[in-house]
């Protein structure tokens, strides 16, 4: 073991630093979305009736389904860390695979939700929105911008987790060296965390 430790000194590695870096990145993301939430709340405060009317247009069922999907996927990626610590590579890959599949399912739902809205003529710059009140234009503008930015994070998260799956497969990530898996999981939980607030603000509060 001592010999081993000796040879590992060259392999520059700082798990604590990697994780701290990820957290600091997550903080910048929280501030980014926090800023958008402030914009949303102020416009809602200034246009309460229009926001009320516009929010009724959103489908609570799709919103709830996507919330459940993200919560379950958050659990599976959290479990993937436990299973890599327990040296169960196959289970780790299965759990990460489920996370990726659920993320894709989320995007499919989002696709149907958006195309549904667009086919009803509700999208930025559409005829129908031009005839609506200022508040409704703001609501749907924020809806597309914020859920769109969130969906972009989902795509980045899926790519990240997919890449780490490859590393697990090739044993570059294993039971004693898995900080990148932890970081991809942290990123995925951030995506979940943002949705936890997007969901009530856009779908529930009408």
């Amino acid at each position: 073991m001592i010999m081993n430790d000796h040879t590992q000194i060259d392999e520059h590695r700082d798990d604590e630093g990697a994780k701290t870096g990820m957290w600091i990145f997550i903080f910048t993301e929280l501030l980014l979305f926090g800023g958008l939430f402030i914009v949303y709340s102020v416009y809602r405060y200034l246009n309460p009736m229009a926001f009320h009317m516009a929010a009724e247009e959103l489908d609570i069922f799709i919103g709830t389904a996507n919330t459940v999907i993200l919560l379950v996927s958050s659990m599976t990626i959290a479990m993937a860390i436990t299973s890599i610590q327990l040296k169960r590579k196959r289970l780790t890959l299965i759990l990460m695979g489920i996370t990726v599949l659920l993320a894709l399912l989320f995007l499919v739902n989002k696709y149907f939700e958006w195309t549904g809205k667009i086919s009803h003529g509700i999208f930025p710059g559409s005829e129908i929105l031009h005839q609506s009140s200022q508040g409704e234009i703001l609501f749907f503008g924020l809806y597309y911008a914020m859920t769109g930015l969130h969906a972009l994070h989902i795509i980045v998260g899926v790519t990240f987790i997919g890449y780490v799956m490859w590393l697990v497969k090739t044993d570059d990530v294993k039971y004693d060296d898995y900080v990148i898996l932890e970081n991809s999981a942290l990123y995925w939980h951030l995506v979940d965390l943002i949705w936890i607030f997007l969901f009530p603000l856009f779908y529930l509060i009408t």
Partner: protein
Amino acid sequence: MENGQHAHIVKYKTFVVVLIVLLVFTFSSVGITQIDLGVYSVTAALIFAVLKSILVLMYFMHLKFDKKVYALMTAGIILLLMIVILVTFLDYLYR
């Protein structure tokens, strides 16, 4: 350096329990906002969202088991956000 040798291993069961609580909170927030409570439905929905995010941060994101410095930094950022929200609304409410 830390090689994860003495890393805390969270049980699968813990995650399952956390997920169940998260789902209960989700359906409760959907249920409570269907009843017309006026301003309180916003408050109720946000309280559930805050409770859910605390669970995600503490358990899924390992803040409960990691070094305390991460939890402290996270608390600091949340405090900063809340101050900014407070100041913004003090402006809009008392113009």
